[in-house]
């Protein structure tokens, strides 16, 4: 049975209470609870105090943005340090990251970019995925990012086929983000239904849904709007096909609590949760 989850990534108590009321699981992003140290980052003690009662009420799942799985040189040690801390204190059911990179030679890009779908990339990331799975001992899922560029002529594999190959080599799971897919439809003419046809949907353990915005002809994935009709419909299709999905997660940035309002986000959560009853 697919459960409903909401992102909690701020100290807004009112919002968190509302989220707990509607969510079966809570998803947190380790990077958002970090405080900087000279050598990297650590989980803020205040964050641990805030998350402890939350974890007592709802199981946590973790979704990172800072691992940089596909950096040519290395994954982020600082991010793994954050995960180590959180796993020690709050045993999440599973965790996930993006099939992408955000650091180059240790320097942040300031954004996240998709990887080439070829053998070189498979050989780079698959051992890293296996190492992470061994390290934490819970399922590790990989998410499709919203493409920044059109598909490359040099790509050996179609995007979904590439994900399937990572799954086959490593045994990891898939996090299907339907708004990212919706961005790819708008920005690059990707056929979302064909993508789902080609994807090994039996490996999809989690589905992300969120709201974005249209800007200068592009669809942007900003997690701070309500969910539009196309994304809602894609989620319905994804849920029908991904019968092993354990969670539908409404991703919403903490900053959106101010702009949208906690009540509007709560109402949206109720609407999205209705997808699970159909």
């Amino acid at each position, binding site marked *: 049975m697919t459960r409903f989850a909401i992102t909690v990534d701020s100290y807004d108590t009112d919002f968190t209470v509302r989220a707990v009321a509607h969510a079966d699981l809570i998803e947190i992003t380790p*990077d958002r609870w970090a405080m900087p140290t000279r050598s990297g980052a650590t989980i803020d003690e205040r964050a641990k105090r805030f998350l402890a009662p939350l974890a007592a009420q709802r199981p946590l799942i973790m979704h990172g943005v800072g691992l940089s799985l596909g950096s*040519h*040189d290395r994954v982020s040690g600082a*991010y793994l340090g954050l995960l180590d801390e959180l796993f020690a204190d709050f045993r999440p059911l599973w965790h996930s990251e993006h099939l992408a990179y955000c650091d*180059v030679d240790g320097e*942040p890009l300031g*954004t996240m970019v998709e*990887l080439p779908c070829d053998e070189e990339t498979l050989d780079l990331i698959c051992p890293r995925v296996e190492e992470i799975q061994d390290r934490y001992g819970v399922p590790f899922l990989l998410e499709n990012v919203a493409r920044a*560029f059109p598909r490359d002529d040099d790509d050996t594999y179609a995007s979904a086929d590439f994900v399937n190959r990572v799954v086959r080599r490593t045994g990891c799971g898939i996090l299907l983000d339907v708004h990212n897919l919706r961005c790819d439809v708008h920005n690059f003419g990707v056929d979302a239904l064909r993508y789902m046809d080609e994807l090994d949907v039996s490996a999809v353990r989690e589905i992300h849904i969120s709201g974005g915005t249209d800007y200068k002809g592009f669809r942007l994935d900003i997690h701070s709007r309500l969910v539009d009709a196309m994304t809602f419909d894609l989620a319905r299709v994804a849920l029908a096909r991904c019968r092993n999905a354990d969670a539908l997660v409404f991703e919403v940035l903490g900053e959106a609590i101010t702009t949208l309002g906690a009540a509007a986000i709560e109402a949206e959560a109720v609407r999205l949760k209705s997808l699970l009853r159909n």
Partner: protein
Amino acid sequence: MSDLARRQRVLLKSLKGRPLDRADAGEEARLQRAAACTAMLRETMLWWRQLGISNACPLTVAVLKRAGRWPAILVSFVRDTPGSTYIGIQAEHFLDYLANDGDALTAAVARTERALRSSAADSRYRAEVAWPCDPAPVLNHCLNGTPLDADAGMQAFNVRIGWSDACSLQWLESDPMDNRATTA
């Protein structure tokens, strides 16, 4: 260098506005074929940076906006520094970047804001920052948007930052004969 390494390094340089090498020509051509996408990615990256820095460094950003320098400084900061995934570190990098700015007022505000961040993290921290003018109207402008005269006065001040019972700013006119002290 592997194809992936070159691709990632060239994208990093392009997004941050750094010069490319001759050896980067192939990847540069690839990015130019998708110029609109590259431009949008850079704009998105800059937007997230401006959001994070504006939230973390409101005083300094307010002074830069007043001077019409904020967009250009953001671009040069991104080009010249590695940045950080963590907004706290990024904010400190940004304030350090402006601590020796050619505009004495901007430098003073950046140093003051940097000292306030350090003070908030460490109750033993003490600092003194030289200002080229009375800090009160400038800080009032930064915090509350009150109008600021073009000439904020030429009298130099020193601002002391630290904790007593609470984190405080104390400013003293630099003329030792007239140590007028104000606390905020």
